[in-house]
């Protein structure tokens, strides 16, 4: 069942307007990634993120009214990118970047943990990509 996390339950303080929804039990890798994403969330231009695996999920997005749309989009990017890659015999996707007219989404899969970071079009994602990719090496 979905539960709404209050700010004092979170590891770090988040703006009052932010929707943080979490569900499920967390594995150590999931917890590490969640902590890293909390830090990434503070960077300029980052609008929020979705972190999920088979048993747990965290959604932290500024635009609460778009949570559903963003969640469906993130899921679709993950599924279809995997299909497209298979079609061209590409193995092990490192990242998927989808740039829209207003927002861009960076999706990565780290050991079964699906990460989708939503950011403003002008935001620099190189540093956050490196930051998340370090977990691939662990």
């Amino acid at each position, binding site marked *: 069942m979905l539960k709404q996390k209050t700010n004092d339950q979170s590891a770090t303080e988040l703006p009052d307007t932010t929707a943080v929804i979490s569900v499920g039990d967390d594995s150590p890798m999931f917890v590490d990634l969640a902590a890293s994403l909390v830090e990434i969330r503070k960077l300029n231009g980052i609008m929020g993120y979705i972190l999920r695996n088979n048993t747990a999920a965290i959604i932290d997005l500024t635009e609460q009214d*778009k949570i*559903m*749309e*963003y969640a*469906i*989009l993130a899921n*679709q*990017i993950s*599924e*279809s*990118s995997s*299909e*497209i*890659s298979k*079609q*061209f015999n*590409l*193995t*092990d*996707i*490192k*990242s*998927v*970047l*989808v*740039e*829209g*007219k*207003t*927002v*861009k*989404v960076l999706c990565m899969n780290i050991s079964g943990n699906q990460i989708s970071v*939503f950011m403003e079009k002008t935001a620099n994602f190189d540093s956050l990509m490196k930051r998340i990719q370090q977990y691939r090496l662990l």
Partner: protein
Amino acid sequence: MVTEVDSNPIQTIIEEIKNISPEITNALVFKNNGQTIAYTQTITETQTKKFVANFASIALQAAAIGSIENFTIQAEDGQINIVAVDDCFLATVSSLTVKPEILKSLTQVVVPTIVRLVNQIEPHSINQSLKTKEVEKKINDDAPLIEKEEADVEPILESQPPFEPFLPKTPISQFMVEKISGLLVPADTVRIDGEVVEKWSNIYEDKQFNSVIIEALDGKKTTCKFRAIKESKNNAKGIIQIPEKILQTLQTEKGKLVIVRPVID
């Protein structure tokens, strides 16, 4: 044999890409309604259709981020890049050894410039060539004779899914599939997000609609009766509940996306 499609300038430049940069193994250009305009000989027609259908699944959801301008998959052994050019998309598959400046030049300057030029000089040339090919195919298949003018009315290839709503008068909504079962569930009726049904009712004040056309992303369609879901909005938002029989007809399943539009009596 040079066909109508082969002779278009976009096809020529797409074939040439591999000579300019052998690291680019595949390339294709397709319209935002799913029509393929040009593709390298390294891709089969089936691959092309599957590729476009998969991309369409994402594009349909991308309204939330202002539609797709650029799409990149980075893998351990290669990358796929899709760039929007006017009403088309250029897709390239390349190895990691490709020189970024050449890839950028080809995908963001050379091909887009040619696509735009072709669109400016002959706005309908691409559609025309596809239409002609379609008509020729129909005649060759000994299909009943149809006048060319009549054939020109429907330029869209049926086998490819339209992922940009292009029928402004009929509201087209997209839903995520949920399976519904039970003794009291009619096998010929789907249940749709009540909020959407209400919007349809507002648009068609005096007209009746008791059935809907459901289309899966691979183009399979069916018409069936529907009922509105009257549950809490959050649970039903964007959802269509479909009985097993209709799921089989559409060859779709829970979690997949379908396009739905009302049938106006």
